[in-house]
């Protein structure tokens, strides 16, 4: 089981990692500042395998890949949100940060709840409340990148054309 860290809607990339900390690309360094202004307890308290849960439009704003890199660097297992901003969605898939889109889970999980996530099936269990949720499946095209562990890993072994095959 892991702890859920709950965030609100329209959480932007400046709130995930302010631009002034983006001069490094080191995931561990970025992780020290992740959510530092809106949830200062997050970085010191997060444990490997914890889950970030948020309301609609998670990751809106800039295209900075530092945002998903910082979250993954903190050891977060996956991000569950009611919806994602498009660049963040793409970036998360590309760098191998698992994401699940599930408005019901976003509404049904509170900060500090204990959750389990079955990433392969997209099932989210809220152990604190005894509820479970089914996330939307990823499109096949995107799933191929996610399953390779991200775009870099995918392209080491494959050509981009294989995505549409």
């Amino acid at each position: 089981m892991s702890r859920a860290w709950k965030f609100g809607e329209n959480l932007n990339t400046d709130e995930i990692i302010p631009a002034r900390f983006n001069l490094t690309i080191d995931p561990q360094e970025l992780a020290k500042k992740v959510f530092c202004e809106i949830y200062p307890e997050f970085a010191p308290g997060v444990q490997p395998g914890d889950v970030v849960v948020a309301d609609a439009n998670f990751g809106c704003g800039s295209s900075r890949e530092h945002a998903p890199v910082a979250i993954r660097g903190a050891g977060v297992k996956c991000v569950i949100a009611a919806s994602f901003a498009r660049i963040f969605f793409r970036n998360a898939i590309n760098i191998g940060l698992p994401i699940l889109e599930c408005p019901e889970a976003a509404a049904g999980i509170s900060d500090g709840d204990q959750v389990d996530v079955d990433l392969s099936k997209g099932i989210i269990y809220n152990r604190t409340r005894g509820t479970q949720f089914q996330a939307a499946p990823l499109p096949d095209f995107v799933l191929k990148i996610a399953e390779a562990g991200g775009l870099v890993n995918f392209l080491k072994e494959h050509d981009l054309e294989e995505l549409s095959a």
Partner: protein
Amino acid sequence: MGTLVEEIFSRRLGREVRAGEIVLVDVDAIMSHDNTTPLAIKAFSEIGKPIRDTSKIVIHFDHAYPAPNQLAAENQQKIVKFIRQQGIDNFYHRGVCHQVMIEEGFIRPGGIVIGGDSHTVTYGALGCFATGLGSSEIGASWITGKTWFKVPETILVRLEGQAPAGVYSKDVMLALAGQLGMDGATYKSLEFAGSYIDNLPAHQRIVFSNMSVELGAKCGLIAPDQVTLDYLVNETKAQPPFEQFTAVNPVYERVITLDVSQLQPMVACHPDVDNVKPLSEVSGLEIDQVYLGTCTNARYEDLEIAAGILKGRQVSRFTRTLVTPASQTIYEKALANGLIQIFLDSGCTVNAPGCGACIGRHGGILAPAERAFTTMNRNFIGRMGSPEAEIYLGSPAAAAATAIEGRIADPRPYLV
């Protein structure tokens, strides 16, 4: 056939493409800057394959330029080394990347351009499909020369009528942001049309496309017309002939119509872009810093509007007023035509072209409890420095009036 975005992809692929389809396309240019290039180089190096066509790669230094600290300097040093090693010709430090992309001729109607920056959508105003991607995809597309897209559904924004004096495209776009909300167009193409757009000069059209990402959009398109072609010929290095096209029998997901003749100057208030109010509701609020800059509103005509208001006047003693032309080209023209002298005479500080203050890097960082009025596109918490500072967004005219009064002020009394 179809919406503008369907038309662009159909032309590129030589077959009819519809919203919902996933397509793999060649891109015309791959843009990145000093903030997003380091992670792109990392991804590129890890994939370990060669660059397909260096002429498509365009790298800008603008986010922290000139380097405000040693870490930024070292980043830029690494990027320069990469540019030299790979023989990349398109390397610029002439101002904000999006303005320079347009000026240097990389943007054409019917084009497909990707950039490691969310405001890459700016180029849609010239009929070019353009969108922001993360660094890994930038590095990957250096190798593949292409990328994939899900062709988006389109929301048509029909803007009709003539805007009253003192109401600019920024005010109209803010009104729209207030109406649609920050996720009102997520994953969608926004298409801007109507009599207001038809009669609008290109530099003001750019504001709509630039800010379309603030509503979550994948792109913000305007059909290329004579205004577009004249702008490309007169203001950019792009070489004709240019494609001209419109939406043909388009099917829109939604149509939103706005009568701009009823609008007044608008302000996006702390802390969200969609927290939009008529300026009159927040006028009088004390302002510590005015910032006239960024890819949204620091083009020559924006500076001209502000200078027209500031001429012969002084900015308020306790309101730092920063003017940052979007590019060197704009700076030169503003210098030649006396605008820079007007800014200096009125007590403004003129900065080198770049993005610094907009992202809280340098050249205008806010202290806790300070309040800024800017021509930017975002007012996120902590964007310009302290998370306890507040940012308000408005037009260049409103920024100039606010600078003079030291409080949020209506520009209209200054326009007579």
